[in-house]
Structure formats: C-alpha cells, structure tokens
C-alpha cells in the first residue's frame, strides 16, 4: 500500500510557514489541512447565517450545512442515527456534560463510578466534583507495573457494581491503547453504562460505535485535524435521553414560560445556544478529507515512525522509556535519567523540536508511576522519517549538553 507522504504533508500550510520546526506535539493539537480552513472560510463568506430558526433560505442553507456536518460525523463513527451526535465545544465539555448529566438521573447517592488511574484530568475532575456533590463513590482502576490498566482489578471493581464506567481509549501520556471493546463488554455485563474518552483514540482508526457498543464516546475536533472549539458527544439515543442538560437556552428549548419549560428533542435538547457552526462545518471537512486517504497506509506510516523513534531512543544511553512500543497509538513518553523533563524539553525546543514536558494533565498517572513528569513525543502521519532522524540527533545533543 503506497502512502504519498509528500502529498499528504503538502496539505498543511503550517509546515511551509514553519519549515525549521519538527512538530511532535500532536497529542496536544494537530495541524489543519487546507480543506478545513477552506471550509470555514467558505462558510463565513458564502453561507454565514444562524441555524434552525431563521425564516429565510440563507438560514436554511446554513442549517443544512450544519446538519450535514452532523451526518458526516454520524457516518464517520457509524452511529445508528444522526440524533446520536451532539455537538459540544470539545472533549472536556462532553465529559462534563456526562458527569453532570448522569447525576440524579442515573447516579444516586451511594452509587459508584469507575474511572482509571490513566485518565486525563478532563475524565477525572468532573467526576470528582459531581460525585462529591451527589454522594457518589468514585473508584479508580489501578495500573500494572507495565503502566497498563490492571484488568484483574477492573473485574474486581466491576463486582462492586458501578453504574458508570468511564475510561480512555488511549493514554494521552504513554500512547498505550486500552482494550476498550473488551472493557465495554465486561462493564455492560456488570450492568454499567460505558463512556469512552476517545480524545486520543479517535485517530487510531475510524471508530465504529455499533461495533464498540459503548453508551457514550467523546472527542475533540482539534485533535483530529479539525478546528478548535468544536467536539462531539456521541451517545446511544436511549442513554442520551438520560442526560440532564448541562446548558440551557436556545434551540434546546421547546416551550418556555415562567411556570415551566419543556425541552426539545435530541440532538437539540443537549445543544444550548448558537452552536459553533463554522467549527462543525470545519470538523466535518476534516473527517471527509481524512477519509480520502488510505487509512491503513496512514496507520502503517505512523507505526513505522513510532518504531524508528522507539528503537532510536532505546539505543541512546540513560533514556528511560515510560511507554511501550506495542499497542501504542504513536506517543512516547520518556525521561533522561537524573534530569528534569523540563530541561530536556527546553534543549529540544532550542533545536526547534516541539515536544511537551510535564504531567500532561494526567497527574494521577504520574503519581501511579512515581514520576513527576516526562517528555512526550507524539506523532502524526504528516511527520517524516527525516524528522525522526533529526529528533534523535537532537536528543543526543541534549544528552551531551546535560552530561557534558
């Protein structure tokens, strides 16, 4: 299978504008292909209008574009219907909607919610806050020594009958791919609602909601070639109906009076206020653009880069690899022994290698690993073999400076 990397990379104006940089901070946010910028620009220039309520054809056009974007997402994730796709501002907003929205409706005092020690803060703190408010117990799946979810412990914790299980598909720090399909089945068998944080996992391969069979799945547009300020909350229709809206106002309302208010149907019930219309159109453009490429070729290329980087790192002295290379979505976390991650990142930055250092919004994971941070290299298909070579050389240089 041939992947025309040059053609793929040429879609990103960013690299023309920043030719000296190696961008390995893709897990933080990805660059945008021309199609995405063009779609937003076209929306503003030709079709700009508010959606749903306008009494004119311009509004109808905008509504159609907006709703077709929903269809695009629904098809992309293989939802059962368009009503299962809720627009939100990002994965964080979606997870907050879930934590807030399940309290009282599904979760009663004394009930349990199960998350993992590998979660991003966005899948921890909303639960902490709302669980505490509602007297719900928050349990945490611990890690094995290899920094994987401990499935034996997971099963033991499932026996406590959590009502909700919410886990990440891919660790945003380590890149480790979790067996979420299996976990969903186990959780379902134990009677729990299942939430998958797909912020990092949505890029693994085209996600299939009917196959994965989880109740909810969330992701952010900006981490899958799309705009900032837009994200998706997927939910099965029956389980979306269980959610108490987090935001009130606008299209989500059917009837308002001071004696009471009735809400609209899904998906509008969970979409308050003027949505990020241009963002939705841009995200749909990103997904359509992505589908034009050979997915397995893209994945293969990324895996090759990962292998090259991993093996290169493993050969360097004093490198402590926190990530494993197998079942890895394209992220490597490492430290240089005896050195602080921020010094390493600074010296890479000096060489125009963009990486991230710190605890990556996953402090509990670092606590579990007994580390206070790491350097993270996160790959995207637009990265090149030469960039990996340059990165490895740069890391060698860092070693020399630090140890010299």
């Amino acid at each position, binding site marked *: 299978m041939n992947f025309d990397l040059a053609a793929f990379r040429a879609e990103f104006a960013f690299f023309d504008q920043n030719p000296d940089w190696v961008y390995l901070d893709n897990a933080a946010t990805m660059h945008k292909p021309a199609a995405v910028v063009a779609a937003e620009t076209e929306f503003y220039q030709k079709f700009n209008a508010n959606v749903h309520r306008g009494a004119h054809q311009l509004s109808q056009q905008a509504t159609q574009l907006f709703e077709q974007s929903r269809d695009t997402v629904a098809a992309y994730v293989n939802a059962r219907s368009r009503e299962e796709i809720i627009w939100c501002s990002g994965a964080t907003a979606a997870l907050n909607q879930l934590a807030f929205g399940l309290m009282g409706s599904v979760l009663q005092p004394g009930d349990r919610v199960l998350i993992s020690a590998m979660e991003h803060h966005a899948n921890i703190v909303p639960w902490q806050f709302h669980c505490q408010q509602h007297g719900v117990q928050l349990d945490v799946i611990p890690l094995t020594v290899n920094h994987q979810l401990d499935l034996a412990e997971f099963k033991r914790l499932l026996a406590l009958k959590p009502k909700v299980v919410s886990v990440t598909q891919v660790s945003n720090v380590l890149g480790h791919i979790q067996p979420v399909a299996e976990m969903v089945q186990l959780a379902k068998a134990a009677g729990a609602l299942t939430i998958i944080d797909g912020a990092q996992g949505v890029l693994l391969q085209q996600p299939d909601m009917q196959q994965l069979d989880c109740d909810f799945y969330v992701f952010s547009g900006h981490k899958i070639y799309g705009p900032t300020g837009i994200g998706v909350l997927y939910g099965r229709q029956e389980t979306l109906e269980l959610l108490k809206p987090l935001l009130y106002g606008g299209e989500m309302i059917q009837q308002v009076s001071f004696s009471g208010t009735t809400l609209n149907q899904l998906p509008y019930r969970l979409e308050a206020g003027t949505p990020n219309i241009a963002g939705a159109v841009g995200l749909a453009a990103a997904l359509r653009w992505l589908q034009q490429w050979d997915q397995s070729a893209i994945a293969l290329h990324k895996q090759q880069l990962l292998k090259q980087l991993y093996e290169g790192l493993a050969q360097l002295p004093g490198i402590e690899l926190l990530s494993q290379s197998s079942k890895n979505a394209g992220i490597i976390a490492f430290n240089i022994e005896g050195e*602080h991650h921020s010094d390493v990142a600074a010296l890479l930055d000096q060489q125009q290698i963009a990486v991230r250092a710190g605890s990556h919004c996953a402090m509990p994971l670092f606590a579990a690993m007994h580390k206070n*941070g790491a350097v993270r290299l996160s790959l995207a298909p637009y990265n090149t073999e030469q960039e990996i070579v340059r990165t490895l050389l740069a890391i060698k240089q860092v070693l020399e400076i630090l140890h010299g």
Partner: protein
Amino acid sequence: MSNLTLLMSQTEQALQNIKQQQLPLLTQTTDWQSKYRILMQLGKGLPSFSPELQRDELLIAGCDSKAWLLHEFDQDSSRHYWAFDSEARIIKGLVTLALCQLNGLSASELTQINFQQLFALQGLQQNLSPSRQNGLHAVIKTLSMQAGLLD
C-alpha cells in the same frame, strides 16, 4: 532559623564567586550549547535547599518544575537578599543569573532594575523556551512582590 541564615549567606557568597568566575565566560561564549552548559554550571554553584527548606509555601506557582524562592530583608543594611532552588537546571541557572544582579540591592536600587530584562543579558532571551519564560515570569513576579515593587 540558623539553617536559613546559613543558606542566605552561602548563597550570597556563591553569587560573588559566580559573578567573578562564570559570568564573564557566559558573555564570551557564542554557541548556544556552551551557553546552556555555563548556565547550568551557574545554577550548580548556587546552594540547594535542604529538604526541610523545600517547603510548599516557598514554592513558586506557575513554574512547571518545582522551584523555591526565599526572601530576606536585612533591616540593618536595608538590603534585599534571596536564595533559590529548582528541580530543573536551566531555570536554576537563569534565576542565578538574575540574583547576580539583584541580591544585596536596596529597595531604591531595585526600582531601577528592569525586571523584564533580567534574563535578556548576553543575548540569552531569544534562546529561552517558553515554559522557561512562563516560569521566569512567575519568579519575577514573586521577586518583585517580595521587594515591595508590586502588591
């Protein structure tokens, strides 16, 4: 308390040494690798905080590595003194550089200092990574507050 006094005086002494021996080197070097090496050397020269001095209330919020700053105003001489430590070497070096310029100044001398320019010396600023800049801003802010220049 004597722990603390000891640290302050050791720091002051270290700064004097650094000013004489290492700072001139930094001015002469041109390649970034050597600059960073010297910078980290500078930092190494500054005494570390003992574990009991690495107290949370001395932590500087906004640094992505842990960093502790201790301030003392000497009533007799009306001069400000600081001691500093950090988990990360580059930031320790940079703050050492700053303290070379600040330690032992009076309040009125401090008002003459352009705090934003403290790390701009020897053309280093453009070579600084942003997380370091963020951290340094946090340090500057704390320093200036302690010097009574901000409230």
